[in-house]
């Protein structure tokens, strides 16, 4: 018989990890919505970011806020250059070459980034090891880290949502997504918007990586599994729909926790793949279009 405390503990853990999955999915969702590219190396950026932030924090003891301020523009620049010099030239090729080329480049980037990170930072797992206080509320263990991460997830989701809704950049992104030609006629440089969206998606995944490394260890090879989870989330939550992605992420996180609790923990990571297959079979057009 599972007690209420155990259930509450699992739900809390599920919300936390689900929120982090959603943050990874935000960037991927934006990139796919605007650029129409499935970036297989997206999750690996989280791995690289997490390892980098943890190493910088452990080596020099620089405050986390400063690390975030310093490294976010670097990830933005990486995303911009990656798109501009490796992916954008493929848009001039025919559909087949462009699709295959995109897959090869993003999968290649995944492998190269993982191995380079392992080479320079070592293959071991790393954390941003800040010991926060842990307390017990009615039999449920809650740590200050978890509260900080939850606060970070909510703040980041709201900021990104309103940024995309209210800013010129957000409206330009929406215009390019809905009608690239119309956007061009209105003076929106779709090439630059696409590159900026790719860069923006890359920098949001770095922010996610800092929150992730606060609670869970990261290693150079965790990226692909997270990318698969992000795929499921954007299919569940809808492309470009950030609150939808947050709910979908939490749904997956909680479902994984409950799978571990009521069935077997070893099946929990497979859940997102199973859900992805079920959704693709039952709703091949996605939830939004099937409404």
């Amino acid at each position, binding site marked *: 018989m599972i007690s209420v405390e155990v259930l509450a*503990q699992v739900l809390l*853990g599920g919300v936390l990890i689900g929120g982090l999955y959603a943050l990874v999915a935000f960037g991927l969702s934006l990139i796919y919505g605007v650029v129409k590219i499935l970036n297989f190396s997206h999750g690996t950026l989280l791995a690289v970011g997490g390892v980098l932030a943890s190493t910088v924090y452990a080596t020099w003891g620089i405050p986390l806020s400063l690390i975030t301020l310093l490294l976010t523009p670097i990830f933005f620049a990486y995303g911009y250059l990656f798109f501009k010099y490796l992916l954008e030239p493929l848009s001039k090729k025919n559909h087949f070459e462009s699709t295959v080329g995109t897959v090869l480049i993003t999968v290649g980037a995944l492998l190269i980034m993982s191995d380079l990170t392992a080479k320079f930072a*070592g*293959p*071991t*797992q790393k954390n941003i090891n800040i010991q926060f206080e842990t307390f017990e509320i009615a039999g449920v263990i809650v740590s200050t880290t978890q509260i900080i991460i939850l606060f970070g997830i909510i703040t980041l989701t709201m900021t990104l949502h309103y940024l995309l809704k209210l800013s010129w950049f957000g409206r330009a992104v929406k215009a390019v997504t809905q009608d690239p030609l119309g956007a061009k006629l209105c003076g929106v440089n779709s090439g630059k918007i696409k590159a900026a969206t790719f860069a923006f998606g890359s920098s949001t995944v770095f922010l996610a990586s800092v929150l992730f490394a606060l609670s869970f260890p990261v290693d150079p090879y965790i990226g692909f*599994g997270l990318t698969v989870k992000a795929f499921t989330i954007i299919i569940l939550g809808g492309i470009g729909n950030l609150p939808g992605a947050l709910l979908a992420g939490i749904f997956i996180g909680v479902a994984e926790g*409950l799978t571990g609790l009521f069935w077997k*923990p070893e099946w929990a990571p497979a859940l997102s793949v199973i859900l992805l297959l079920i959704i693709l079979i039952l709703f091949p057009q996605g939830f939004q279009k099937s409404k």
Partner: protein
Amino acid sequence: MNSFKHFFKRFKYFLITIGGMMKSIKTFVSAIIISLFGIAMVPNSLAKIGSCNDPILLGTTISETGPFSTLAERWRKMTEVFAEELNRSGGIFVKNCNKKVPIKFVIYDDQSVPATAVSLYEKMATVDNVDFFVGPDWSSMGGPVPPLADKHQIPMVMANVASPNLYDRGLKYIWGTPYPVVPRWSERYFEMLSTVEPKPKTIYFVTHDNPVMKNLTAFWSKKAEDQGIKVIGTETFVPDTKDFTALLAKVRAAKPDIIYISSFDAPSVALLQQIRKMKIKAMDVHHAMLSGALYKQVGEDIQGMTGELPWYPGIKGDYSEFVENVLNKSGVNMFDYIFSLGRIASYLTMTQAIEKAGAIDRELVKNALYKGSFKSPAGNVVFDERGFAYNNGAFAVQMQQGGKVVVVWPKEAATGKMIWPSPTWQ
């Protein structure tokens, strides 16, 4: 002389013709580079098997990258130093050659991926023409790789492949020197448990989804029951798991006296951190791969935990000085890389088998290995008819304050006193 001139003249015309056929200088240069690379590969592919005039080629793969690299990242250097130290005295005495023959390792990184290891051993058998195989490690590779040794009839002394069932397949060219083997892995720990006060009554197994770890749980959960310690739960997790909340909530609710973690070091990092965060209490938390690599990743959170260590410098035995020297020169600390002895034992076993066979001959070496007994610093490696070194055991250790590892059992080898129940888990 004329024939040389003629050859070069012909070769020049050949190059000009080929060059003309090349669409660009870039293509031409690439072709030259590829050709040179091909020529560079020739000496290995033409290496003579069993020659007394060439070094004995031992082919191996090491998990230098990928998830197992935390356990093996310094083994390339260790392997090279092993060869240097052995060759310092000339190498292995081979009776048929009437002299000592040096050894040379052909080493590749298997990236911790079984499929990669399979293709690399195939390459070593067919392109590099190695004389014998040493390695690989890990039971996940001990499944797919050994059939290749049988296919090419090349004796293979695997290193850390500890699951006994992998030796039950009737393969004739396979041996293994894991330290420790599954049936002796936690022998000393359970011996110790029968002597401690207060006595533990319950145990909870948390298992990494991996062949050797599942075997470990299956074997030692039965032993625990036989010893009167009730198994009150068994949970399995996959290596990529980051959130252990559900699993640990169940462990916490069960309140076991002992939590036995059968896992490689890297996959259990998040688990150990979360055990602490969830304030789980027990008399002892035992980790089957308590290592320096784990300490570097988890830190003080593993203080007070117990584990196993196959051997450590200071314990005298055959080749102990040689092995200590190799470890020192390659910067390998036994506690950081706890499976180094299994690796070195595979090299020691193979070199002794070649000497025993008296020839660089695969069939004779195979016969020398069959049910053989070979020296190692931790006692003799003794093979049964399957090629399994059934005798290899380990000491029980406890990690005490400041990351200090103390051998606590058996008493005669103990370097410190066991603190029981472990105060850090109260």
